[in-house]
């Protein structure tokens, strides 16, 4: 019969007006930590890791849905060696990607380009999300307009409710 004692404990009083004051320290701490954590320098990475970061953006031509960084296929290892060579020659990430696009086609880049038809895959989810949000806003507007149609609680109703909310006598069952 653990259920019974739960019936209705009075709600702890909500301290009015002081809500935001209590939040000031936690917000300050959080923002400070976020700024500090995201601005401080990252631990140094090795050349191999920088090479791999670029290889992860290039599709392994031989395999399916694996990047040249993740796959153990021979051609992927050649690509990693090649990227390392190009980086040591001072080529930028874009130059390296352009080279591979020229040799293997657009398909070799795992990130669809933001221009041209590839842009659709980036833009469409945003459009859909905005439409969904707009739909929700419109729905809430409509609900607010119809808010007055429903039955209203009278003071008699509220009296019934407050009576019902009194702690029930122990052991109903």
């Amino acid at each position, binding site marked *: 019969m653990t259920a019974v004692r739960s019936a209705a404990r009075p709600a702890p009083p909500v301290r009015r007006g002081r809500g935001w004051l209590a939040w000031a320290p936690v917000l300050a701490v959080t923002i400070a*930590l976020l700024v500090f954590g995201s601005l401080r320098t990252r631990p140094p990475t090795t050349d191999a890791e920088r090479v791999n970061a670029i290889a992860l953006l290039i599709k392994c031509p031989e395999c399916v849905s694996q990047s040249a960084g993740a796959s153990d296929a021979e051609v992927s290892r050649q690509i990693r060696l090649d990227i390392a060579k190009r980086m040591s020659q001072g080529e930028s990430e874009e130059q390296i990607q352009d080279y591979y696009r020229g040799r293997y086609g657009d398909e070799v880049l795992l990130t669809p380009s933001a221009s041209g038809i590839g842009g659709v895959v980036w833009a469409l989810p945003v459009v859909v999300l905005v439409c969904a949000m707009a739909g929700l806003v419109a729905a809430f507007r409509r609900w607010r307009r119809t*808010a007055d149609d429903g039955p209203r609680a009278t003071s008699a109703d509220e009296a019934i*409710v407050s009576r019902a909310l009194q702690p029930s006598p122990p052991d109903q069952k």
Partner: protein
Amino acid sequence: MNSAIGVAGIVLGLLGSICGIVVLAIGLRKGNAALIRSGRSYAGLVLAGAVLCVVAMQRALLTNDFTVSFVHDHSATTTPGVFKVATMWAALEGSILLWTLILASYTAIVAWRERTRTDDPLVGWALLVMLVVCAFFFLLLAGPANPFGTVAIPEGYDGPGPNPLLQNHVLMAFHPPVLYLGYVGFTVPFAYAIGALITGRVGEGWLAGTRRWTLFSWACLTAGIVMGAWWSYEVLGWGGYWAWDPVENASLLPWLTGTAYIHSVMVQERRGMLRVWNLSLLCATFSLTILGTFLTRSGVIESVHAFSESGIGPLILGFFTLIVVVSVGLIGWRGDRLRAPGRIDSPLSREGAFLANNVLFGAFAFVVLLGTVFPLIVEATNGERISVGVPYFNRMSTPIGLTLLFLMAVAPVLPWRKASGELLRHRLIVPAWIGAGTLAIAVLLGATGLSALLAFLLGGFAAGSAGRQLVLATRRQGWRGLVGRANGGMIVHLGVILIAVAIAASTAYGRQTELKLSPGQTAEFAGHTIVYRGTEQRLLSNRDVVEAIIEIDGDPYAPALSRFRFGSTIVGTPSVASTPRQDVAVTLLELPATADGVVSIRVFVQPLIMWLWIGGGIMVFGTAMAIVPGRRRNPLDAVSAPIHATGDTTGDTTGDTAVTDSDAPSIDKAEDSDAGDGDSAASGVPVEV
């Protein structure tokens, strides 16, 4: 012999389902209760057919009956016993067979559970829909996916064995069946949804009846996906667990819409709203399982896990079209008249949070689907070939995931109907401190990068919020504070948070390197000392294994390359050591040419990987807790909705509940008390059957 039994099973199942469909259709059309009632016995025939097929297949596999085409193509005498059983789902035809068996079992269970109300048109229609799906899968087995062809074999023939990657880890024996239990399980609520649309009875009764199916299927799907990720991590050796591969996405899609449904259905049970939307989500979930089947089995999309291509594609696509036309058509035809009255008072309320949840999960599913099929769409548009890969999915899912974490922190403390900002500030202050504390610990441990830091902050915030609800509930109800939907749901949230934090940490701080070492040579990487000792060869029944003996910080690792006897495929096996703090994984890239030559290995060091699997376990446990009936409410307790027919609380085998929603806003004030909201979601369904 086995072929004959198997074919007999297919014929039995196909005829059983077709006869059942015809009898039920006539019965429902004429309103003939006796006919409708007899419909359920056909479900038994269908189950018998499926069981017969599976028994024949397993018998053929275990006795190496190579005259059966499936065994001929995919098994070998040298395959170890447990993998012989698992060979059934290691290739296309057998996987359809497994699907059919699970589907037939579900159909039979529905027919049996509903035996007392089979003359109810809603149940009749649901059973009819399930039999149509059964008939389709038996049709696949009878046609393009027939595993029981007969083959003449030469003396002493031995088969090739299953795909080497699939006989490399024991998880393969469990991952597909569990995943299919989830996929197929969504057929049941879908069937009821179609039944509800046809009969026009979109009230909440059928929801309560299918609630456990949905939760059970969802738990299985969750477990199946997590197991798949685990298998990928332990077997494929690329250091990751999720590659956004089309097949993985195909399993994630129904999970996303299913998750959206599980949340939004609470609004319907509680408030009687969103009826048509919930039906749409169920239809979408089921359609996506069939679409996933098409994508993985038709060969239109390249994937690591895709089944070998076959003529099965057009049939599945046709079935998908049928489902889409029927679902969309029914919703369009009836949707406007079935819409429930009522309104959602405020965006800042439990209902509002569920709506936001649905928008986010819907957007997530849309992103995953779009990314998966976008190369096909581009190719159809202008013939160009492009790829949409990991960078796209990661970039798109990160903001959605972070927003969901934030929502997960705020939503549980929101009362129904309407909340004030003050109430929120009061209830969320402790969770916010927990989030800030988590962030502080992460920063102290050296965490950098905004998105990972946000994940830790919001993860802690959400965990604090879920923990708060659980603490309040257990303080009030003892151990019962851990069961029931709302409380079980909070446990699931904790599991999700663990997974989110583990994903954030392993993605942001995982490191890897390639090393070339000669015997005795030492290398340093990410604070670990790596020594290569030499190689060892082992001969197993179905493969030759060469292991490289590596020591990392004194612990032995043995990444291996296996050459399977058939087809000379070489498969790598990574060696992984897990600790709660971090995982170290080693894969062997290249064997040394000579005994004292140079070995080429890859080393992955990734934090918190273990928590992915633990989080998955907690999610499944939480769902189990949610299925356990929550506290039986004292009829005189204050709840927002008056309970009609309180006599029903003793339980009622029909699965009907007396859930109502009488728009009575003022009564809801009870909810705003802090103690009253812990199980308020569960109170919407006072009767748990």
